[in-house]
């Protein structure tokens, strides 16, 4: 189990067992209410993952002091900052579209924070130059933000946020404005930079890959609540909500286990729908398996798979070098098969098909 | 010349005491030419004295004075406005005791009919203006010239259907100059100033409304002696000559 793979153990200060960030955020924005509790250790990166409008940005803005809490607290390094004004919080923020000041050079953007902290112009610029150098941006120091590429702009924004030496680093979708090919590089770079940061970091993202690569821990936010927390691998393997399952591309069902039989909860419960799993469980559980674990047959197969259902093809789409078949029936299911298999099975929307899943492939865990 | 002598006489007493300072005169806009000329004279006669002239509509000046404008002399285009000042900020009591409670009248003006140079409507006397086909500009009854106009039309018993009641005589004259109206009632001084652009027509009833220009030294004048000297100059023969040249009558 690669839960944290030891890459960067949170290093609490000797004798201090307070988390670097300890926050309970409650707030209302119109009809929407947010209520989340976040704890992040020193050197740890927490990713907030969630659909549009889940409240990720609101949470980040509350941590920065940009929106008021109705209740709760924000403690950074054990010190209460709940009512500290924005400009005096020990916080650095990297905004989604970076918000670099267009009328200043990259250097002046980075030196802005130190200047505001009362450092002299020379000292502030020296610190900024050092940070930019550390990010391979010395050549761009005099450039206006308009002349930077997306990846460069992101690093300048990060340097600007780090220049105030924050204890808490907040990043709101730092990769969203980048194109797919530079993303890979930028993501790797950002990872290195985050590894060097010794405060707490909270990262908002839509992209599960970002969360996987950049974060030590993932918190999934839906409708203003945290619905799942854990290491990226845990969350990816054992999603707790359809949103997460869809995000990581799994079939997910909630049901009640009796031994190795799980009866799936269904709205219309005429005929019970049962999934066989490998290890025995009792009570409320979740069952997940990847689309590639689903085998399709035109005729009823006679073999080992313990789960065998008759379903109907709803649609077919090409997905990388695989084909994803959407099935409907008692429960909707996705299956990934090879194009050759597709041609052989002659799957067109409306066609009946047998779907088989080995019990060993169906991961079952308490719901 | 005689005028020069009179000027020196007028300022003679002051120059013996070696006057110096700035004399501030607020005067009706229609006095611009005359007072500018007299100011040069006054300064020549009183080296070290500077005359500051501020021209505007009489009522605007009255408002300024009643709001405490630091001025020495007020020359109004009509007695009503002077009365506003007398009731408000007031005149210098010492000076008023000599020259009259309501200031001293130094010039008069009478109405004339002004028509464009080619007199398109063929106006000859006041009665012609009552014809509806003759577009006529008059001054608004609120302003002195308008009051005078009302007086002469009453006397002449004509009713003039004006197309506009202008804010001052100057505006009436502008309309005549541009040919926007066929005739207007203005002061004799305005016809004189307008040169060839307009033609002035006298009419007998004009004598029934003689507009009087009063002048006075203001209460709290910073330079009451210079002010008195200025008023003396205006009332002197030199002043009278200048006024006459500009088309004013003198009392």
């Amino acid at each position, binding site marked *: 189990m690669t839960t944290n793979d030891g890459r960067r153990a949170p290093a609490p200060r000797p004798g201090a067992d307070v988390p670097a960030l300890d926050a309970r955020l409650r707030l209302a924005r119109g009809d929407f209410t947010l209520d989340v509790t976040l704890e992040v250790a020193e050197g740890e990166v927490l990713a907030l993952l969630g659909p549009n409008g889940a409240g990720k940005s609101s949470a980040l803005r509350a941590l920065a*002091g940009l929106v*008021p*809490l*109705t*209740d*709760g*607290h924000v*403690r950074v390094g*054990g*010190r*209460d900052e*709940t*009512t*500290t*004004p*924005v400009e005096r*919080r020990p916080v650095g923020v990297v905004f989604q579209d970076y918000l670099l000041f267009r009328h200043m050079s990259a250097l002046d953007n980075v030196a802005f924070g130190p200047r505001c902290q009362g450092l002299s112009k020379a000292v502030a610029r020296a610190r900024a130059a050092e940070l930019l150098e550390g990010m391979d941006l010395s050549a761009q120091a005099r450039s206006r933000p308009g002349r930077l590429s997306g990846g460069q702009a992101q690093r300048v924004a990060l340097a600007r946020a780090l220049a105030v030496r924050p204890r808490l680093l907040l990043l709101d979708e730092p990769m969203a404005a980048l194109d797919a090919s530079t993303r890979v590089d930028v993501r790797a770079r950002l990872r290195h930079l985050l590894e060097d940061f010794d405060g707490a970091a909270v990262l908002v993202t839509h992209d599960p890959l970002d969360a996987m690569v950049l974060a030590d821990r993932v918190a999934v936010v839906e409708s203003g609540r945290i619905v799942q927390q854990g290491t990226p691998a845990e969350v990816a393997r054992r999603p707790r909500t359809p949103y997460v399952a869809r995000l990581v591309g799994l079939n997910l069902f909630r049901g009640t286990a009796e031994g190795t039989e799980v009866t799936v909860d269904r709205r219309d419960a005429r005929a019970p729908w049962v999934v066989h799993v490998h290890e025995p469980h009792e009570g409320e559980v979740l069952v997940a398996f990847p689309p590639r674990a689903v085998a399709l047959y035109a005729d009823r197969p006679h073999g080992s798979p313990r789960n065998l259902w008759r379903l109907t093809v709803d649609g077919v789409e090409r997905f990388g070098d695989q084909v994803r078949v959407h099935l409907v029936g008692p429960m909707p299911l996705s299956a990934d098969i090879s194009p050759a298999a597709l041609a052989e099975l002659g799957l067109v929307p409306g066609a009946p098909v047998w779907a088989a899943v080995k019990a060993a492939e169906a991961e079952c865990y308490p719901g | 010349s005689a005028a020069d002598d009179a000027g020196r006489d007028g300022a003679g007493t002051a120059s013996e005491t070696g006057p110096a300072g700035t004399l501030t005169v607020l005067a009706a806009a229609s006095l611009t030419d005359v007072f500018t000329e007299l100011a040069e004279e006054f300064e020549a006669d009183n080296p070290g004295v500077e005359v500051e002239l501020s021209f505007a*509509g009489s*009522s*605007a000046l009255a*408002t300024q004075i009643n709001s405490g404008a630091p001025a020495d002399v007020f020359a109004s285009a009509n007695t*009503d406005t002077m009365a506003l000042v007398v009731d408000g900020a007031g005149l210098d009591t010492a000076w008023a005791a000599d020259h009259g409670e309501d200031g001293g009248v130094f010039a008069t003006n009478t109405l004339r009919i002004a028509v464009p140079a080619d007199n398109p409507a063929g106006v000859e006397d006041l009665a012609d203006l009552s014809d509806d086909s003759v*577009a006529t*500009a008059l001054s*608004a009854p*609120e*302003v002195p010239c308008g009051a005078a106009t009302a007086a002469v039309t009453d006397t002449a018993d004509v009713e003039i259907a*004006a*197309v*506009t*009641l*202008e*804010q001052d005589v100057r*505006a009436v004259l*502008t*309309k005549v100059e*541009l*040919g*926007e109206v066929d005739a207007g009632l203005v002061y004799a001084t305005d016809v004189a100033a307008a040169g060839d652009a307009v033609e002035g027509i006298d009419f007998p009833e004009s004598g029934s409304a003689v507009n009087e220009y009063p002048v006075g030294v203001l209460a709290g004048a910073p330079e009451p002696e210079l002010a008195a000297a200025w008023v003396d100059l205006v009332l002197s023969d030199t002043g009278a000559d200048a006024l006459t040249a500009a088309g004013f009558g003198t009392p």
Partner: protein
Amino acid sequence: MTTPAPTRGRALRARSGRPPWILLVPALLGVAFLVLPLLGLLVSTPWATMGARITDPAVLSALWLSLSTATAATAVCLVLGVPLAWLLARADFPGRRLVRALVTVPLVIPPVVGGVALLLVLGRNGLLGRHLDAWFGLTLPFTTAAVVIAQVFVAMPFLVVSVEGALRGVDARFEEAAATLGANRTTVFARVTLPMVLPGVGAGAALCWARALGEFGATITFAGNFPGTTQTMPLAVYMAMQRDPEAAVVLSLVLLIVSLAVLAGLRGRWT
């Protein structure tokens, strides 16, 4: 390090601080600059006579004339000024910079001179006016139409400058999107651009209306001063000033209150 127990109930607002004095002081001075003169007027107003004056039919007629001509002038400004603003913001033609500077002419020129200029063009003997007279028997000066024309002249810059600013703020890609859907430039303007700049047009129209309402110099010169047809409130104020400055103050206040009511009522919607 003891941490205060978080307060419950009302918002835990990170004290955002009141506006800094270095901005607040000049801003308040600015307000004072605008309000004090108004206060001066209010203090010196003979309130007792107020009632009588605002029901005086002559005043009511001037007020009505002012409101109706200012509204008409604003309408004309909208019809001419919005397309002009569009041209300045969107079309690319030689001399655009000059035209843009020309738009500010009525601001710089003393209104009385503006009135004279209008007479030189549209007066009975004016460049155009003489033909209007000869061909159509139309004379503009001394009519209510002349009041509107004078107001349009002085108030147009406000509309054009505001709307042009708003047009520059519009994302031109929406216009492109409309074009790809088959809309010609007129349709794009009417159905896409205009609805998007409506707030800017509203703000411009409000400024324009206020300026037209306060217009004096060009009106009295070009349109003259005749109660009922061309004597607007500012002219009535001026006339009152000649004899009875207190009356002038009262009339100004009436004008001011009416226009503030209209503007406060309207502006809330646009900003």
